[in-house]
């Protein structure tokens, strides 16, 4: 895989955008994170999350720049998925789960009571650990599912093709769009799920260990895809595979037992972390 060698070169901060946010609206950067030059896509301040009595996230502060890839790493059970789910309020579907703090998308509050989670989820899409295409639907209908929900008129053929191309799946399925989604391999199903999420044109794409159920070749395809998607989308990816985090992300957040221990440019986290716990984890001393 030649692509992965190029990644280091790409791993510079995203280009400066002309619409620089006004100084006053710019949120306080999290410790260890450089001040963002442009308005962040997502801002997380003092985020706490609970499952009943279990305090799963403690005071998380983090800023996600637009058109970048943020990786969340850490040992199993440290709160990565919980963090991700808060970002599109999927945590609300779990009985007893709640979140407090400030979450902002483009500077606008996202946890407030007046924010409709349904509308939010159309802006912040999600891809899950195991591919979960709708089994009773064809490949085409899976991609168009979100369009139907949004009552996008027309026959969707053009959007289906465009998103399948974006998800690097078009060439493999263009002759059998009517076939069941289950006729695809696991890796293809996961790319179908990515296409399904992209079809509604979200601004942010959350991915919870999207390659952990896949073989190495399918994993490499997903990683390549993430690189291409970064041009247009803001991506937050959970992975417990540190090499993967190193390959795909611009910044990395290390979670440990519900704490966000450290967040910073991926290169720094892996070569020169400020925290002992981060160093121990990335050098494989525990986890």
């Amino acid at each position, binding site marked *: 895989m030649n692509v992965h060698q190029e990644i280091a070169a790409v791993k510079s901060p995203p280009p400066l955008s002309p619409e620089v946010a006004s100084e006053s609206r710019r949120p306080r950067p999290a410790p260890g994170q450089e001040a963002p030059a442009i308005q962040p896509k997502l801002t997380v301040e003092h985020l706490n999350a609970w499952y009943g009595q279990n305090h799963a996230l403690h005071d998380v502060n983090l800023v996600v720049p637009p058109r970048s890839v943020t990786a969340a790493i850490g040992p199993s059970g440290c709160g990565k998925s919980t963090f991700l789910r808060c970002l599109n309020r*999927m945590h609300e579907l779990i*009985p007893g789960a709640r979140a407090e703090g400030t979450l902002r998308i483009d500077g606008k509050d996202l946890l407030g009571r007046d924010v409709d989670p*349904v509308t939010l989820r159309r802006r912040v899409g999600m891809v*899950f650990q195991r591919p*979960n295409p709708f*089994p*009773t639907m064809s490949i085409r209908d899976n991609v168009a599912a979100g369009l139907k929900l949004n009552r996008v008129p027309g026959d969707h053929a053009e959007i289906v093709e465009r998103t399948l191309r974006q998800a690097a799946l078009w060439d493999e399925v263009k002759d059998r769009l009517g076939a*069941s989604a289950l006729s695809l391999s696991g890796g293809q199903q996961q790319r179908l*799920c990515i296409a399904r999420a992209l079809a509604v044109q979200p601004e942010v794409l959350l991915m919870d260990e999207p390659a952990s159920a896949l073989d190495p070749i399918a994993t490499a395809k997903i990683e390549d895809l993430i690189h291409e998607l970064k041009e247009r989308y803001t991506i937050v990816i959970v992975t417990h595979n540190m090499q993967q985090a190193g390959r795909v992300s611009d910044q990395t957040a290390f979670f440990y037992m519900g704490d966000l221990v450290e967040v910073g440019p991926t290169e720094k986290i892996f070569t020169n972390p400020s925290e002992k716990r981060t160093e121990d984890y990335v050098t494989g001393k525990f986890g």
Partner: protein
Amino acid sequence: MPPTSDTGAARATPAPARFANLGDRAWGWGISILGGTILVVAGLVLLELGRVARPAWEGMNVLRFLTSTDWDPVQEKFGALPFVYGTLVTSAVAILVALPVSVGLALFLSEMGPRRLRPPVAYAIEVLAAIPSVIYGLWGLFVLVPWLRGTLEPFLQGTLGFLPIFRGPMIGHGYLAGGLILALMILPTIASVTIEVLKTVPAALREGALALGATRWEAIRMAVLPYARPGILGATLLGLGRALGETMAVTMVIGNSPAISASLFAPGYTLPAVIANEFAEATGDVHIGALASLGLVLFGITLLLNAAARILISAVSRGTRGARA
């Protein structure tokens, strides 16, 4: 990977493997014998029914028996059609009413309802399932029939009276009463099986829909119900089985009149009801034989509907196979 690991492991533990094999085989034989016994018993029941029915078949035309609408044991006229008709119509009414209500209840209990309201509703469904059918019959006689006569039937005739099924005199006793009692009786079956079916829907599917920006209801329509459809069909089939065979409650409210009417308000009769009512007083072998033949007809209907439902389920479940793994 060491190339010999497979054979090595197999050679290292030959004895336990053989024992396990023996146990498996004993188990397999036991199960086969049990399964075979059930088949034999079913066969014996059929044979016995046939033996009892035989006297009625002398000089009788099967087609005439099935299509004639006359039922007059005194004159030895035996036509099965009114009973077949009554059985099918009451069962159809029962399914049409019970299916949407049951699925709605199941969705309420497992997907949408306020959590605090779920236990009492679930308990009420269990209680419904435990009530003996004669109690349903009494309730039907004293509550349902008067209500149909005084309220529901006049209302239906007033609003939908242009349909033949809602015309004619409103007696209360009739197909509608039988069908509604059956609906109430099969509702717990369909609802509780549907709840179990909904539990098997992978949470990932529901989340997939919700993450696309579906509302709860849209997620149910998009992801949950399509996946659960074969199971819900199976639940319906179970309910239908009970509706076809139910005797006591139906015979108490249907009017027990061997006639065929287009109107749901008219009195009718069902196969199980006529068998139960006339068997004790049946005089000749021919009458008993005719009643046993009705039993065979009921058996046949059940088998046919089962087969049809099975074909339907396998056609519908084609889409979800594999996703269940």
